[in-house]
């Protein structure tokens, strides 16, 4: 076992009373004294600050870098305008998902953010291309919530001008940072990439704002689950295809038609013929949370699927889950049973998300 790594904000988390745990090889705060529900509600009603420095930040440079990246992922990058970010994923030869990531056109290079647990795999994967892959040593914070625009825009006016999935470089408290209007909570907000040595200073200055409170991984998970956003390793993985996971929207038309990415055979076949299972929202009718691994059955007791993420949704005020079910049971309002602790608990298939996304379009 190697010692968990620390982000530049580690000591600040401890100072703020963060409950630290090993997450994907990184010491990260699950919650602060406010608690998971309080932090969740803070993000839905005002704004929360998350440390996401454990995620990998990478610059890709070189001739035709966008076209070359298209050989690994089924999204369109050659037509991605400068200053725009795009959600995508690396597919494997079987059409499963190796990881999901965000790719931004930063003008003279592509800026890529990958999951913490997958950063070594992803960087090695991108290094198979004839391009320059530079892993950045920078901090990354997310400021999320309805007052994020006021908080970040007051410091960097350019941030207020961005719309959802736009990115720019701007001065933040005297430090040159990359600001991207996106996140993982379903709320409006930003991710701000900061030179490592200045991350603590910038974060502390933001936290002086009365509307902003630190939020941990616990709230991050309940927020993204209510927003219907996939967690890699839970809801999507090497076995699930983007079509099964309802991520067809992230594969632009030209790529879907032309192929030319790993696993295109399966993905194009599924697009034409349909899939046998689909990722859906599942709302337990009662109060018992249905967590990852819980089996989903039809009304006759036949197992038709499995929960991949589940827990308590503070904004919903009850349990919320996501999982794969056989396609004939994937229509909203379909009644199913969840097998929890040997009992059948009734639940209803819903159209994701559980909580409306509030992006600034």
């Amino acid at each position, binding site marked *: 076992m190697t010692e968990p790594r620390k982000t530049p904000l580690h000591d600040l988390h401890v100072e703020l009373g963060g409950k630290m745990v090993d997450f994907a090889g990184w010491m990260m705060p699950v919650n602060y004294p406010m608690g998971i529900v309080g932090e969740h509600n803070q993000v839905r009603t005002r704004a929360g600050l998350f440390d996401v420095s454990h995620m990998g930040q990478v610059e890709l440079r070189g001739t035709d870098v966008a076209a070359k990246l298209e050989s690994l992922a089924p999204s369109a990058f050659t037509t991605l305008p400068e200053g725009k970010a795009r959600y995508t994923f690396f597919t494997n030869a079987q059409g499963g998902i190796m990881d999901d990531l965000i790719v931004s056109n930063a003008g003279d290079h592509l800026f890529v953010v990958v999951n913490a647990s997958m950063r070594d795999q992803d960087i090695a994967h991108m290094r198979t291309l004839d391009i320059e892959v530079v892993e950045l040593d920078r901090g990354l914070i997310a400021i999320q919530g309805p007052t994020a625009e006021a908080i970040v825009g007051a410091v960097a006016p350019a941030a207020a001008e961005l719309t959802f999935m736009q990115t720019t470089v701007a001065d933040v408290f005297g430090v040159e940072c990359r600001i991207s209007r996106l996140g993982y909570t379903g709320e409006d907000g930003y991710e701000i990439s900061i030179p490592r040595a200045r991350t603590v200073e910038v974060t502390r200055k933001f936290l002086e704002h009365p509307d902003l409170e630190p939020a941990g991984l*616990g709230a991050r998970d*309940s927020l993204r689950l209510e927003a219907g956003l996939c967690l890699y390793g839970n809801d999507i993985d090497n076995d699930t295809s983007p079509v099964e996971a309802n991520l067809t929207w992230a594969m632009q038309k030209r790529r879907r038609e032309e192929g030319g990415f790993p696993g295109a055979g399966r993905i194009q076949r599924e697009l034409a013929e349909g899939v046998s299972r689909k990722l859906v929202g599942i709302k337990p009718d009662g109060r018992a949370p249905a967590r990852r691994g819980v089996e989903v059955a039809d009304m006759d007791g036949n197992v038709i699927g499995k929960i991949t993420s589940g827990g308590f949704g*503070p904004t919903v005020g009850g349990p919320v889950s996501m999982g794969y079910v056989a396609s004939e049971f994937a229509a909203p309002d379909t009644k199913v049973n969840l097998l929890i602790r040997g009992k059948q608990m009734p639940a209803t298939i819903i159209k994701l998300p559980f909580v409306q996304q509030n992006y600034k379009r």
Partner: protein
Amino acid sequence: MAIYYSEEHEWLDVDGDTATLGITKHAAEALGEVVFVELQEAGETFDKDDEIGVVESVKAASELYAPVAMEILEANSALEDEPGSVNEDPEGNAWFYKIKIKDTAELSNLMDEAAYKAFTA
């Protein structure tokens, strides 16, 4: 009257061969915000270490185990409607069961307050 504690972080406030049973403040704090409680019904009997309920927080599900062989006399059904009370008053109003202890000699396997304090220190 005496209060006993189990290694599963339950407290038992004993009066003769009956007792009130709940989870400790230490357990409630470790669990985090409780969002769901599932209780067994009055009249049911259990051997020591049988599962007697479920407490779920925003973080995880935890089972509750019988600290001694017991029969449930009364379940605190208010917890099912207001699971958050387990965080507010775990050693008071948010008790789980009134029970009848099958064999009070089993209490000697439990800890007193000083031992439990040392156990959780």
